[in-house]
């Protein structure tokens, strides 16, 4: 068995996600537990708005 959070990042990898922008917080740390088991890169902005703008520029 794995947690839903661990399964989520494996699913994202299955869809081809290569990059995640995020700032860990006490409510989201469990989303990070499974990340080292994937090839997904994590970039840490300094504000969540920066995360959104970076993701926008990445996708645009």
């Amino acid at each position: 068995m794995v947690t839903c959070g661990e399964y989520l990042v494996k699913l994202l990898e299955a869809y081809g996600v290569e990059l995640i922008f995020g700032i860990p917080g006490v409510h989201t740390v469990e989303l990070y537990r499974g990340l080292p088991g994937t090839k997904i890169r994590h970039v840490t902005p300094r504000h969540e708005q920066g995360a959104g703008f970076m993701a926008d520029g990445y996708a645009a």
Partner: protein
Amino acid sequence: MTNIATAMGQAYADSVPMLVISSVNAREQLGMRHGRLHELPSQQGLVSGITAFSHTILAPSQLPEILACAFAVFSSSRPRPVHIEIPVDVIVAEVEDSEPVAWTLPGRAAPDASQIAAAAGLLAGSRRPLIIAGGGAQDAAAGLRVLAERLDAPVFMTINGKGIVPPVHPLRLSGNLGMMPLRAELAAADVVLAIGTEFGETEMYPEPHPVRIAGRLIHVDIDPLQLVTQFPAALPIVADARLAVAALLSALPAGTSSGDGAARAGAIRAAVDQVLWPACATHRRIMEIVDQVLPNAIVAGDQTEPVYCANQFYQAARPRSYFNSSTGYGTLGYGLPAAFGAKLGAPDRPVVSLMGDGGIQFSIQEIAAAVEAGIGVAVIVWNNASYGEIKAFMADRDIPQIGVDIFTPDFVAVAKGLGCEALRPDGIEAFRIALAESARRTVPTLIEIAEGSPLAQQLRA
């Protein structure tokens, strides 16, 4: 969650795909007003208005299906942010460790054959066709160029459509739809083919005008509601832009030519050059140097004078090369982190961020994130020590210019403190060298150009 809402609003307006995954309080705590960390009356309700959809995962079993829905939005419909929130108790709930499987996603919608036949008939009989290509037509660029040549139709590209037709093409138009030469052409064209555009007012700064199309409008968009906004179309066609252009090419015989498209386009380009802002001279020179030193660059911009100018004259060499937050929702601070993201998405292309002194103070701390992630981009900061566009807007309306003359920090010192390279070139040659060197670094290079500085004066000359 609220911290990312502005960025989601910008992506929503610009039709950018973005998957936003957040936590939310535990299921039994939702809506209980217990004063818990990050508690909102309804986080999902707050965010849902800036998404294609927002979903709360109430049980782990929902996750594969909802992720498939998210990626179906990105693959097959108008791309926009999707929000998935997972309660903290669901995040840690146990699920079977089965092999994760990406669902097979739907394709893109093809156009109605009878509408394509009717559109081909209108275009074949047109004496003065005009094509308007928006951000939604970027993936149709190759076919659209052939279609334009077959019809001999001038092509206007919106800000997010820049690059669909290359800069040297004889059928390329310039300016914006609010400028008189373009408004005159909209009134004179007997058939207008508009693909992937909402005719947004932010296209037309500094002087937006309601778009008036006198001839028959063939409007192609992936979003059916976009086809019945602002004004009716003679032929509203719901379809993927690339598939619609391919179908039109199949239906239109070769040699369907109006004959004078290049001459019309040339006359409009010349007329647009006469109505550009005076400030465009300086910023045209900046962009010429950028193109010379960093060919094939991606230019990500903010809301700032260089961007409002470049929107009017700049021609991108290919699609997905020029975008900024002056379009759509409109946010300060976008152009710096967006350039960092663009570089991560296209590491082999040079990336240039166009910022103002006001806008960069909304997000300058992200330079530290770019240094950490090894992102080498050129950040050009146009410094007029003010919220200059708003200052001019107040002056135009005879409003006291309060709150717009701002203290600006020493950007070179701040940027160096954040770990990147930074300089104030003293002339055009130094500016060229700074741009060239920026492309060889693995950290950002901030290049400040102060209004009235020797470099700015050289650029204006």
